[in-house]
């Protein structure tokens, strides 16, 4: 009986040994490459964090509220102001900013790679046939499985956290870019061609503008996924709010865990609404809305 089964056991362990061998080979031969990538990403993340930490928390909250008022609504601006000040009161401003820096760094990289990949996938069959299984892999592979090799290749800290986040959050923007471009009605494409569009003009003047709402949904989804992954990545030393939550769990400190959780939710809501508003025009012309508020003031 054992003789019948053993070849299969042998095969499944072959997959494991292969994966081990690949990581070991990379560790041995790719030191320079990974150090380079490491330095690049770390630099990028630190610049992001520095920029975000530069203004005082209050100034930052007011700035975010202003953008919120411009793009979304007065109510949302109020929510930003109250929410961000709550984070300051809880003493979680610094961890929140470093989480935000990680999210921004990871999602910017994801968009930088994902958008061109999506455009290519929408226009070339072979490119899509190549990327699709990779996206499936990236989305369904349990995150912890690649957290460990990431630590082995890049050490602990912000960089493996960003890489893991990048892998986890890139699929939506690629998929939705492909979908958006493919969904552009055939007659618009034909109109573009009949007026003499080159392939580049067709992409730039017809396909991308029409796909924009769908592409922006992908951008929004990528940023939201990045936020959820950054919290998990605290386990490999990503830092930020994830650390606070992790501490709460480890010390069974329910209050601390809850505070960290609320800060994550506040950050998530603000990021979600702001990125969603980017795909639509502002609700009303800004000068008009400011005038109406000033009028309200005068009546008093």
């Amino acid at each position, binding site marked *: 009986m054992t003789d019948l089964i053993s070849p299969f056991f042998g095969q499944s362990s072959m997959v494991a040994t292969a994966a081990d061998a690949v990581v070991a080979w990379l560790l041995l031969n790719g030191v320079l490459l990974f150090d380079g990538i490491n330095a690049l990403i770390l630099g990028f993340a630190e610049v992001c964090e520095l920029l975000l930490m530069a203004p005082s928390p209050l100034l930052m909250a007011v700035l975010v509220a202003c953008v919120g008022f411009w793009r979304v609504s007065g109510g949302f601006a109020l929510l930003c102001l109250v929410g961000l000040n709550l984070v300051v009161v809880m003493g979680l401003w610094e961890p929140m900013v470093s989480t935000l820096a990680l999210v921004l760094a990871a999602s910017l990289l994801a968009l930088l790679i994902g958008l061109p990949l999506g455009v290519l996938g929408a226009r070339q069959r072979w490119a899509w046939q190549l990327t699709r299984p990779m996206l499936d892999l990236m989305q369904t592979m349990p995150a912890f499985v690649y957290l460990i090799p990431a630590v082995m290749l890049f050490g602990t800290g912000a960089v493996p956290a960003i890489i893991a986040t990048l892998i986890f959050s890139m699929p939506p923007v690629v998929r939705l870019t492909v979908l958006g471009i493919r969904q552009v*009605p055939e*007659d*618009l494409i*034909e*109109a*573009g*061609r*009949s*007026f*003499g*569009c*080159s392939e580049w*003009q067709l992409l730039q*003047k*017809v396909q991308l*503008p*029409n796909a*924009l709402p769908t592409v922006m949904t992908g951008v929004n989804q990528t940023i939201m996924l990045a936020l959820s992954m950054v919290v998990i990545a605290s386990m490999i030393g990503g830092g930020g709010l994830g650390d606070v939550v992790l501490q709460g769990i480890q010390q069974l400190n329910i209050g601390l865990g809850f505070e960290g959780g609320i800060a994550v939710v506040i950050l998530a809501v603000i990021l979600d609404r702001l990125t969603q508003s980017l795909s639509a025009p502002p609700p009303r012309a800004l000068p008009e809305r400011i005038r109406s508020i000033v009028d309200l003031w005068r009546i008093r």
Partner: protein
Amino acid sequence: MQIGMEALIQICNLWKIFESHQPENRRQASDIELDALGRLPGNRVAVKEVSLSVGAGEIFVVMGLSGSGKSTLLRMINGLISPTAGTVEIEGRGLDALRGQDLLAMRRSTMAMVFQSFALFPQRTALENAAFGLEVAGVPRRQRLQRAEQALTRVGLGQDLQRRPSELSGGMRQRVGLARALALDPPILLMDEAFSALDPLIRRDMQDLLIDLQREHRRTIVFISHDLDEAVRLGDRIALMQDGRLLQCGTAEDLLCSPSSSAVSTFFDAVDPTAVISVGAIAEPASVPLQIHPDDSIAPRLSASTLIKDAIPIVASAQAAIPVLDDNKQVIGMVDPRAILRSLQRR
């Protein structure tokens, strides 16, 4: 084609077969080989052995039921679909010789297309839509917006420049579509069932607009339609297509009075003959030799090209038969109420 008109679009033995397999080059294939190819399972013949020429400045209507290959034929004229065999020549230049940039340049300068579904870009305003062709051709922004505005004003949308397609009615949208083509000022307009999606009244308005535009500045218009009344109203000549074949090509009067096959006469069953036949065709030789003094302007008379429909009130109120004059003011015959009745009975 009328005599003295130069052929602007020349189509010679054109075939289009949509193949289930990767199409090969069949430029040299004979008609018999192509016919056999079209019969293979999975393949579909869209256009078959079509030869015709369109003269400069005429409205050429291609008529046929849906699936008769007329839209495919139109798309082979601007190269959106490449023919399986046969040639298309625009202004004497073969389309299959044009590659890449040359083909794009020809589409930008020589022809513009108007679509049944309007095909306006939803995120652009009417003005930006009308300027699209010029934008693609690389015309500077100020200049192209100015020309787009002129085109929109001409089609009656001077007040709606900043509105988006979603804020416009169907008729207004197609006016934008027409302005987008007119802004380029191309010698050739390709209209793919351009008015078919519109309400009957608005369709009539658009036809009038097109006739007006043609009166101001003659363009060559290839107009695809499945509406016979529209074809008769607009077309200088009509080409009738069925199952990818060209049945007959000529003026509405030719097609009605001397159909080449029963299929052609079936098409024209529903048409009002008095709106198609001119009095010149039904004038009967006078029994008594008749002399008309050229200066005698009081007596009623008809020009040979007058349609029967327009002649009926004059004939009905006249005392006797009315002389019909040709372009040189020579009497070619007489028309009386009985001649009109006989012309209707003949069918």
